[in-house]
């Protein structure tokens, strides 16, 4: 069926002679969306931690940038075998000496660079023991990490990829305190300013299923462990 | 205060004592009761089976019969629900009838709702020894929003041990013609519903609707489950007499 035929059928059902007849409708909900949630940083962090931990996310709060790399290697030492560690190639992960620290712990670090060959990168992520990302935001109300395939509002940003936080069994995310906002609406409003990244994920804890006799199981297709470091 | 009784077809044919109980209880509280003889059925069976024109005719008969009534009270949450929820919808294309339907719907009450909300009585002075569970019928709780009123009346009955219904949301499977058209499903629902009562070991099942009582009672009788069924009004009137008041 063509677009024209499809839209004409719909219009006819709505009592219009042609799809263009009604023009652009005005959409104004009868009540504006309310502003909700706290704005104080500590309250936001506390709520995020509470919700994230309910979903089996492991949260670590650190005070200084110097603690990032040791924290990441400590998590890797506990959670992952030695092997490939993939990461976003993003400014949010720069300046912590991450690659050096992770390499000296015996892993091979592979950043997802802009322009890299897709099949190869996906295959690498699939073999990786862990993936390290930053976040675009963290949602306190639901304990969610917002992970965009490119920096929001900047589609030409360096590489990030969709699979770093998806294919490896362990996902480590670095969240800066000031990135924690209260609700998804704030993220949607920011996204609405456009242009949207090709993919935005709200990830809330490790992958889960209850498909076998209603029994909760963790790590079905996505990460089995999610570690969040709050700086 | 004057109340017109709408007996409902089920109570008229199968449970006339329920109507008698309602009349006695209303009179005890100073209400004048009349019984317009032109009444038949609210039309719910026709409406629910898709015979919408027949249902409208029956509704018109109700509107005419009770046009001048101050209040209309009936011993069925389901029929009251039909009048209040569906009558206005049925006539939404006819301004005059729509207004009439809304007006009559506003004056229509289920028995326990009328006692508590309009008369403001909770303790009818009844005494009845039993371990009872109350089943709130679906249309009464969802279309009328009557949930606590019958429980209030029961809580004030002396010697009555009221056990909590574990799944008050769950339908008993009656559903009017549904019970005859889809008897296997309907019976499975009755069994499930009765099964939720079993661990509580009640000896009495109380409801505000003849349909549910007929259904669960009929199934309990067939399966040999020891469970007496009783309409709330009947229990209260017997209870008042027991108490020698």
């Amino acid at each position: 069926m063509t677009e024209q035929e499809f839209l004409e059928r719909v219009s006819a059902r709505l009592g219009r002679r042609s799809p263009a007849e009604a023009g652009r409708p005005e959409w104004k909900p009868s009540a504006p969306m309310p502003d909700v949630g706290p704005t104080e940083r500590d309250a936001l962090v506390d709520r995020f931690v509470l919700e994230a931990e309910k979903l089996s996310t492991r949260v670590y709060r650190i005070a200084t940038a110097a603690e990032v790399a040791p924290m990441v290697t400590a998590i890797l030492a506990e959670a992952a075998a030695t092997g490939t560690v993939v990461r976003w190639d993003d400014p949010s992960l720069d300046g912590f000496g991450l690659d050096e620290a992770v390499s000296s712990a015996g892993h091979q670090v592979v950043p997802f660079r802009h322009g890299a060959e897709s099949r190869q990168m996906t295959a690498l992520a699939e073999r990786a023991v862990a993936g390290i990302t930053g976040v675009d935001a963290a949602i306190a109300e639901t304990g969610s990490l917002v992970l965009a395939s490119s920096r929001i509002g900047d589609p030409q940003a360096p590489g990030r990829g969709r699979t770093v936080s998806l294919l490896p069994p362990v996902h480590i995310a670095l969240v800066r305190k000031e990135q924690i906002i209260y609700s998804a609406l704030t993220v949607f409003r920011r996204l609405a300013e456009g242009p949207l990244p090709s993919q935005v994920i709200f990830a809330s804890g490790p992958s889960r299923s209850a498909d076998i006799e209603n029994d909760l199981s963790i790590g079905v297709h996505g990460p089995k462990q999610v570690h969040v470091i709050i700086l | 205060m004057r109340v017109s009784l709408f007996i409902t077809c089920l109570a008229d044919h199968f449970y006339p004592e329920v109507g008698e109980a309602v009349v006695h209880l209303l009179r005890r509280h100073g209400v004048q009761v009349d019984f317009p003889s032109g009444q038949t059925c609210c039309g719910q069976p026709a409406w629910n089976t898709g015979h919408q024109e027949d249902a409208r005719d029956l509704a018109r008969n109700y509107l005419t019969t009770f046009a001048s009534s101050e209040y209309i009270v009936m011993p069925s949450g389901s029929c009251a629900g039909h009048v209040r929820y569906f009558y206005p919808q049925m006539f939404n294309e006819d301004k005059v009838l729509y207004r009439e339907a809304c007006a009559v719907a506003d004056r229509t009450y289920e028995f326990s709702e009328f006692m508590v909300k309009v008369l403001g009585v909770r303790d009818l002075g009844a005494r009845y020894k039993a371990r009872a569970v109350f089943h709130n019928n679906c249309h009464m709780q969802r279309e009328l929003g009557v949930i606590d009123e019958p429980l209030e009346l029961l809580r004030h009955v002396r010697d009555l041990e009221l056990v909590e219904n574990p799944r008050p949301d769950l339908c008993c499977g009656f559903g009017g013609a549904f019970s005859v058209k889809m008897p296997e499903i309907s019976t499975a629902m009755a069994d499930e519903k009765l099964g939720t009562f079993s661990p509580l070991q009640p000896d009495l099942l109380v409801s505000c609707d003849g349909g549910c009582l007929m259904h669960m009672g009929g199934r309990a009788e067939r399966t040999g489950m020891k469970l007496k069924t009783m309409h709330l009004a009947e229990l209260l009137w017997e209870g008042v007499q027991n108490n020698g008041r």
Partner: protein
Amino acid sequence: MAADPNSMPDFTARVEKALGDDQLRGALRYTADQLRTKRLAAMADLDSQAADDLALGTLDDLRARAREIKAHTLHNLNYYLKLAADQIRANGGTVHWAGNAGDVVRVVEEIARRRGAKSVIKAKSMATEEVHLNAALERQGLEVVESDLGEYIIQLAHETPAHIVIPAIHKTRRQIADLFEGVSGEALPTDTPTLTAFARKVLRKKFMGADLGVSGANFVVAQTGTLCLNTNEGNGRLTTSVPPVQIAVVGMEKLIPSLDDLAVMLSLLPRSATGQKITTYFNMITGPRRPGEPDGPEELHVIFLDNGRTNLLGTEFEEALYCIRCGACMNVCPVYRNIGGHAYGSTIPGPIGSVISPVLNGFESWTDLPQASSLCGACHQVCPVGIHLHDHLVNLRGRMVERGQEPLSMRIALSVWMAAWKRPWAYRLLSRLGYWLLRPFAKRTPDGKEYADNLPSIASGWTMSRNFPTVRKRTFHDRWADLEKGV
């Protein structure tokens, strides 16, 4: 899956099979109760959060907003479809228009041919179930693998889902282990971690080798051309991230105007479906991989599907297109919890399935389904978009009576009965007649109560499993004279 009413046993036979399967019914009730309890807790939490200004609104607030969004979108659906299509194209995607099931199959087959595709990985999608995509693609020699754990189990068993949120609910871990052994050729222990790990390993290989990823969408934001998917397992993310081509089959009612509206719908869907505040993954896809991005699909195709949906548009049943497929109506339905999805047979079972299936199919099929309800209204009470499901079931029964789709015996009985009851004198005459007609069947319990247990004709439907009270010799009408005197 085979939701073709002509190729399955009739409804009564399907119901009988379900009612005879205690394991299925036990599992259904257990699952439905769990989901119901979780939903209740989530909504109570939502209301209390809203009271403290910590949520966008109470359930009632959000339901009202959602209804407004849906009504507005549907009344301007042609505009929003065009807007969404333009945006998807601007984002680098391709838009296809499917008037019916065959159109979807043709579009996907064409893409598969052009890409030389051999294998397809699927995320859970009711729209693809509706158009029987899997079977069609398999006939073309493609390997199609369902990646949702429950759907995968069902696919291995060659069955259809018993529940829309938890498809393999009727399967025990032993049965699941047996199905997996059929794949691996070796014995597996039956604990959940082992079974899950096995499925992860097998399906991960399928993901990595798949040529096409096929998904549905929970919402499509017209303003930005964004596809939204809610999943817990992560298979939705894999399907839309790993294969070189992504195809989304989207019912045209999934559109919402803006990202603000998405906040409302997202607050309602997971809470209603599983009692979660949000699903583990919420996925927003705005186009295929952009130049320079290190991964993601090269092509994104969106297929907008009508397939009978216009039959509801602009009619009294339009509201049924508000449905966001949360399944809450099924989890509270006393009929569904006793017969399950297989007995309904339609792609979407339960109260909403009983409403939309006959209308989507032009009243030609699934006409039994609207009868399979006691009209208790529990469905309407929980519906996050407030669809008046039991009203629609009644209206459908009305349409079916108008179309003469009613058993003759029932039509005759009801016509006579209702004709008499419109006249007060005939009503009272029928009462008398009823008393005498029941006399030959009357029996007495030891305590003197009269009943019948073997009535003929239509009434045998009742007495086959329940006792029926007899009509009283003196009805209330007869007794009123005495009562009046007693004043």
